[in-house]
């Protein structure tokens, strides 16, 4: 176990304070008081965000009201200043302090080790997994129809998508900002093969047969996008995938003859099984879909976990860490990068197929660029590279806006989601449940050893 000592957090603060004294920094430029100033500004923002909605004829209405109306602004300021005072002046409890010291002094966090060791035993792990699966399986029986819809339409579909994106971003380290394009391709090809688009297929198929075709179509699309962009790295790749998304979206929106234009496709049949003794059709009730998607997700997760620890997974890690070094050591980077794209895309296609046949209706509205960005945010929020983290994070963030519906104006939910993302990235950039490897990388980076992220080589950027 490597232990690297570093100054405690408080010690570092002390150093900063001493320097401040030496340099005679005026009080209003010292960190403590600039933080207070920031808190007051944040309070104003909070007052604006919680204030009344805009009126149509006076653009100042909302700003004026939320700034002057009653006690809103004073309450917000008081709240934020109280926060500030709590963190600045209330001493940390001794236990917390000891824990912090222990954590700060070692990279491997020994305080956790005992609980972790117990959990790492395979039977315990499997038992915990079984409990979680059972709870999830019976969950839809105990919640209302509305939440069942959310569970299937938002949570389940996005979890499937995020698992796919995790392969591309989390494991292979390819930044993909256009992931929903594959979701759209999957949904549209399912619609096509079930005969719901203006263009008719040679044979109309059951959605269950159309889905594999959709998956293969997405796989091919993934390779087609991947092949010309293999030379690109990091942010260049990001903008190309973003452009790819926009192209797919605009084709879906504009090619009226093929895709049904902005109206989309309607009457996509629900999936059904007719196999001798087994005769079942999924209908409007969301519960059976939940079990269907859970089954699919379970298979996908199992395969991906096997993949992560296989030769392929290690090749992805190598590419993510340092592509040149990987290639020099005999990793076929072209093959594995294409593979990551194809696998991610086909997972997305599967999600698209399920989504299309579940809702029975698709339109370009469901495949906007914002959703691509959101899925990426979900993956990072959960902890990229860790399949469990990604699932939990996605479920949480996909559920949150629906939950907020009960509390705030429907249009304002994204405001809060944005604030949450910023705060999360400031205080926990590694995500909810980071993968073990990433956690180590991040801790080392904090100590100044290596880079947290080999995703984009520092461009040696220069402004010419």
């Amino acid at each position, binding site marked *: 176990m490597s232990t690297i000592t570093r100054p405690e957090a408080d010690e570092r603060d002390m150093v900063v304070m001493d320097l401040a004294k030496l340099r005679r920094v005026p009080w209003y430029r010292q960190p403590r008081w600039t933080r207070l100033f*920031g808190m007051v500004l944040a309070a104003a923002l909070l007052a*604006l*965000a919680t*204030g009344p*909605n*805009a009126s*149509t004829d006076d*653009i*100042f209405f*909302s700003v004026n009201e939320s700034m002057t109306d009653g006690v809103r602004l004073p309450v917000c300021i008081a709240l934020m200043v109280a926060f500030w005072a709590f963190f600045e002046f209330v001493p940390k409890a001794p236990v917390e302090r000891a824990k912090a010291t222990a954590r700060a002094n070692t990279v491997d966090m020994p305080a956790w080790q005992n609980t972790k060791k117990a959990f790492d035993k395979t039977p315990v792990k499997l038992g915990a997994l079984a409990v979680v699966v059972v709870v999830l399986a019976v969950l839809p029986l105990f919640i209302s129809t509305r939440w069942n819809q959310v569970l299937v339409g938002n949570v389940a579909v996005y979890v499937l998508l995020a698992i796919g994106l995790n392969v591309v*971003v989390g494991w292979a380290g390819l*930044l993909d900002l256009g992931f929903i394009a594959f979701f759209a391709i999957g949904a549209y090809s399912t619609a096509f093969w079930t005969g719901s688009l203006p263009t008719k297929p040679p044979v109309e198929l059951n959605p269950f047969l159309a889905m594999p075709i959709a998956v293969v179509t997405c796989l091919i699309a993934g390779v087609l996008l991947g092949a*010309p*962009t293999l*030379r*690109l*790295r*990091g*942010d*260049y790749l990001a*903008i190309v995938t973003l*452009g*790819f998304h*926009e*192209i797919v979206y*605009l*084709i879906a*929106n*504009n090619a009226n003859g093929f895709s049904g234009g902005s109206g989309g496709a309607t009457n996509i049949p629900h999936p059904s099984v007719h196999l001798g003794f087994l005769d079942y059709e999924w209908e409007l009730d969301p519960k059976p879909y939940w079990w269907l998607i859970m089954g699919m997700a379970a298979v996908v997760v199992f395969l991906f976990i096997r993949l992560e620890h296989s030769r392929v997974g290690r090749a992805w890690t190598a590419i993510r860490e340092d592509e*040149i070094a990987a290639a020099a050591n005999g990793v076929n980077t072209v093959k594995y990068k294409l593979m990551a794209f194809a696998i991610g895309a086909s997972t997305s296609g599967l999600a698209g197929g399920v989504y299309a046949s579940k809702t029975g209706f698709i339109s370009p509205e469901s495949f906007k660029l914002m959703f691509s960005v959101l899925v*990426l*945010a979900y993956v*990072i*929020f959960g902890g*990229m590279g860790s399949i469990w983290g990604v699932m939990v994070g996605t479920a949480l963030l996909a559920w949150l806006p629906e939950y907020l519906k009960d509390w705030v104006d429907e*249009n304002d939910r994204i*405001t809060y*989601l*944005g*604030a949450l*993302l*910023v705060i999360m*990235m*400031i205080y926990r*950039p*590694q995500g909810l449940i980071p993968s073990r490897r990433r956690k180590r990388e991040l801790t080392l*980076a*904090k100590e*100044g050893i290596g880079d*947290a*992220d080999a*995703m984009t*080589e*520092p*461009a*040696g*950027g*220069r*402004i*010419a």
Partner: protein
Amino acid sequence: MTVQEFWDYLIPGIALGALYAVIAIGYTMVYGVLQLINFAHSEVFMVGGFAVLMVFTKIDFNDPSVGMSVLLVLLGFATAGFAGAGTAFALEKVAYRPLRKRNAPRLAFLISAIGASFLLSNLAGKLFGRNNHSLTIPFENKKVFTVMNAQVTVLQVLIVCSAVIMMIGLDLLVNRTKMGAGIRAVAQDAETAGLMGVDIDKVISRTFIVGGLLGGIAGFLFAMNSSVGYTMGFFPGITAFAAAVVGGIGNVRGAMLGGLLLGLVESFSSPLFGEEWRYVSAFVVLILVLMFRPTGILGERLGRTA
């Protein structure tokens, strides 16, 4: 496409391209010093538009005289520039600096910028309504002259002239001043620049301010050309980012060139392929350019990529 159509679409194309170029500079400068996509730059652009909308609504002018028009336009520039610079400065403080201090992974910056972008644009939607507001142009937008029978309006002249002035000014700032030298030093190697006595935090802050200033003013010009709305930053934002990449991200002159190119492509694709395909064309060009020149037209050494 007839010859007449060529000229008719060339002029708005140049105006649009000039706007994209100005916005793209904001992306490229931030990328230069931080090697990060500033996803929230499109919101800086939007704030510029809204700031001018608020000021102009407060003043409530009606058919201003020529002198008054000039004053109003200057006021618009000042307001938009100030608002844009302020927003960019605040963004850097909130969404970038804390992460930089913690040596956070690159993607965390991207997500926090995206979060800030969601927050700002939806907050604007809540405060000012989710419909588009038209910004009253403080002058009579008549034609100034014609080029091959194609009309050139006052607004187009204003857009192109101010964009050119801003770009020349920025080029001088980056290449001739001490501040520019600081920016270039940090862009080349932040650590070494720090050891040489460059205050990295200050340079980064200033880079955001300069980028935000240009972004805000572009927002004002764009708002006069179309309208102000909480999603107004989205398409110009991603197109300008594409422009920055086409030109070679991190390269200021490349951003100008890329912006002009995408503006023209977008404008010409309307008569060639139909209005609804104009946004596709910019991305098709982007992908084609990157396929043959993976680091953009003017290129930029991208680490160790072969």
